[in-house]
């Protein structure tokens, strides 16, 4: 309820925050108006603490730590057609801008990525941490960086979506043992197309693939056609995905482009599924074609790119709530498959980041409570959320 009210209230308010505009007296109480005036007057200083003008992730450094940077909305639509966590997407819509906080784990990863040697096999990075600490958004930060650097982005927003609640499981035409998921595959292909439009015409496949008796794809046709075929012929979508993954893997080693494989919720690949066959017997995850291909993708037997993954307990199946370590969430099988990898812990906010987050909310007039900007109020918020970004965001939604 508060969020919806907030949307209508704050969308109008955000317009008013633009400097130089005459304040229009709407249906606001005089108290918030006074707060507005304060914000207007000291417009520059809070922004200086919480936001930075450096909008290119490539140039983010330690000194930007704790500050939000603005992502242009147009970019958001191309790069993240499907990748953002839902609460963040709501916040983006409310504030009418997309701001991400620059944090240490992301900076660390950026540093590694900038110094990757593309001749070596792809390095695997795993972002792990407790629930709500910001793993997915850190991943988005990385993806933005890579997009700006003109990498090809293979982003699976949430692998858990592929192992639960799927309808229309078809038996795979390629391999009788496996199952296809036409809906998920086609959706993903659409998003993939949006993200990587410009690469699709450049990359040519190097093998002939036969869809069925009448249709086939010749060697040398562009990847775009494969994707088109997958989108239009939903039955073949899963196979199209498989082809895309295989080709990309093969060709990234050639050095034409750099490939970033970003998987969110990678522990889904080795966990259990909730899908069942018609005779109600459960399906193991390797019997799903999408999962099988994805597993091949995250193996480090190719070079010319990097693999960044996050573990997620939130969507995971059959895992205890407090599990967040790679060992617990991946299980033995997954851990062995992913080994060796570089683990990166994403933790709660440190005091500086917390302060910055509160400032950001205050600027956008998201916190309306009188005590929100006092010291005691901030201490209360800190205690109640313990610096956890997710909890803090949920808390502030009520204020």
């Amino acid at each position, binding site marked *: 309820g508060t969020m919806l009210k907030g949307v209508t209230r704050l969308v109008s308010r955000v317009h008013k925050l633009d400097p130089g505009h005459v304040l229009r007296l709407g249906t606001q109480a005089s108290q918030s108006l006074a707060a507005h005036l304060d914000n207007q007057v000291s417009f520059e200083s809070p922004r200086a603490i919480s936001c930075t003008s450096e909008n290119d992730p490539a140039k983010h450094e330690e000194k930007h730590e704790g500050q939000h940077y603005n992502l242009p909305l147009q970019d958001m639509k191309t790069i993240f057609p499907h990748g953002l966590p839902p609460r963040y997407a709501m916040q983006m819509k409310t504030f009418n801008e997309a701001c991400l906080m620059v944090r240490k784990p992301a900076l660390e990863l950026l540093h590694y990525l900038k110094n990757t040697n593309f001749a070596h096999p792809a390095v695997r990075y795993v972002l792990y941490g407790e629930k709500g600490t910001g793993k997915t958004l850190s991943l988005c930060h990385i993806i933005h960086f890579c997009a700006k650097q003109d990498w090809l982005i293979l982003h699976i927003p949430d692998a858990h979506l592929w192992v639960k609640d799927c309808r229309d499981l078809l038996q795979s035409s390629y391999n009788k043992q496996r199952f296809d998921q036409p809906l998920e595959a086609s959706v993903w292909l659409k998003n993939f197309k949006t993200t990587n439009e410009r690469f699709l015409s450049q990359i040519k496949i190097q093998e002939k693939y036969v869809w069925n008796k009448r249709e086939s794809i010749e060697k040398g046709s562009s990847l775009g056609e494969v994707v088109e075929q997958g989108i239009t012929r939903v039955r073949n979508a899963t196979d199209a995905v498989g082809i895309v993954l295989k080709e990309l893997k093969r060709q990234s080693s050639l050095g034409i482009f750099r490939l970033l494989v970003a998987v969110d919720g990678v522990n889904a690949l080795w966990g259990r599924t909730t899908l069942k066959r018609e005779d109600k017997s459960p399906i193991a995850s390797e019997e799903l074609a999408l999962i099988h291909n994805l597993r091949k993708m995250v193996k480090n037997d190719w070079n010319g790119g990097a693999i960044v993954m996050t573990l997620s307990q939130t969507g995971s199946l059959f895992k205890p709530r407090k599990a967040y370590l790679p060992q617990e969430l991946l299980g033995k099988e997954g851990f062995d498959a992913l080994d060796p990898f570089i683990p990166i812990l994403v933790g709660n906010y440190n005091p500086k980041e917390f302060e910055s987050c509160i400032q950001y909310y205050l600027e956008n007039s998201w916190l309306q409570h009188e005590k929100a900007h006092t010291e*005691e109020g901030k201490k*209360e918020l800190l*205690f109640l959320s313990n610096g*956890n970004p997710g909890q803090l965001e949920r*808390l502030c939604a009520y204020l």
Partner: protein
Amino acid sequence: MAASCVSCGAVVSQRLLLRPRVSLAPRQVLWKAAELQSVPGPQILRLKHVTVVTTKKNVKALRRETYTVDFIKKQIEEFNIGKRHLANMMGEDPETFTQEDIDRAIAYLFPSGLFEKRARPIMKHPEQIFPKQKATQWGEDGRPFHYLFYTGKQSYYSLMHDTYGKILDIEKHKNQLQAKGLFSEKDKTTDLIGSRWLIKEELEEMLVEKLSDQDYAQFLRLMERLLQCGAAEEEFVQSFRRSVTVQSKKQPIEPVQHDAQGMAFSTSEGRRKSAKAEAVVYEHGNGRIKINGIDYLLYFPVLQDREQLMFPFHFLDRLGKHDVTCTVSGGGRSAQAGAIRLAMARALCSFVTEEEVEWMRQASLSVLQLDCSRLIRASENGRSRARREPAGSLPGRSAECCRERRGSVHLHVANTHQ
């Protein structure tokens, strides 16, 4: 009712004054009284098994049943004899058998699961059981003994009269002293702190007559005036005051301990419902809290529980200043949060000034009851569950259904209510 004392059923129906509808003719009463008095030793004990709960209401209903002075004396003798028998039964010394021993013995011999404490078997001195009644106020010739009898409230008016007399005496004394020049200004005023005036019910009990509110107010005014005059009649005044226990003195403050690294900390425990918690609060820290080794954000994902934890620190304005490690077991989510909160508040007492301890007590933070004494409300007043309406009181059922259900509820009542 019938099930408990079958043998003295008739006696029970007389003694148990719970059904005022049962009005007995005075002759019958006297006969019963005579019967009682003529009965020898063993049966006397049986009488004592019966609980006599006489409230003011019942006294009104059975106005005809006045207890004569002889009757009360007889009861007291019987009570003493019964006390000695009971002491013999329990194997204790009859000479030093106090009322608490009696209570314990009765609770042991007649265990009762009734929730209403007043309904359980008791054996007390007849003074406490039989309401105080006035002896007959007039003599053989019909002439009343007390000079204020015809006012209707003779004890009250005589008390007021005496008090006023005392005030006049004090003033006369003061005037005499002033005339002689020996009057000293310093008066030791009576210490009124820690005591309160009698409430109206207590005064009524003392005087054994009904008072009105105006009478009571008048009485208080007179008492205040007496106090103002001087500290002469201290015992007289104090006989009308009751002490108010100061509760905060009961709470022991835990000492501050020091562990190996020299960090100051203090431990205490708290309980709520069936959850037990023990908290170790360190004096200097960051505001981290660990419960059973798990961070409090993960242990209490619900905001409400974390707010409970926040309250002691927030109240004392020490939000980020202490580190806490605690262990908790039992109860549910809310109960554990409440128990930890209590334990933390108590532990914080040792780092905090006396004043703040008093504030905390008033804010019911470090509440003194050892555990939260809210119990599950079982059936009461003839209902089959705590909140369920009795059958037939809500509309929407057919008549036969009502009758049936009422019948079954009736049985239930007979079993539990007694």
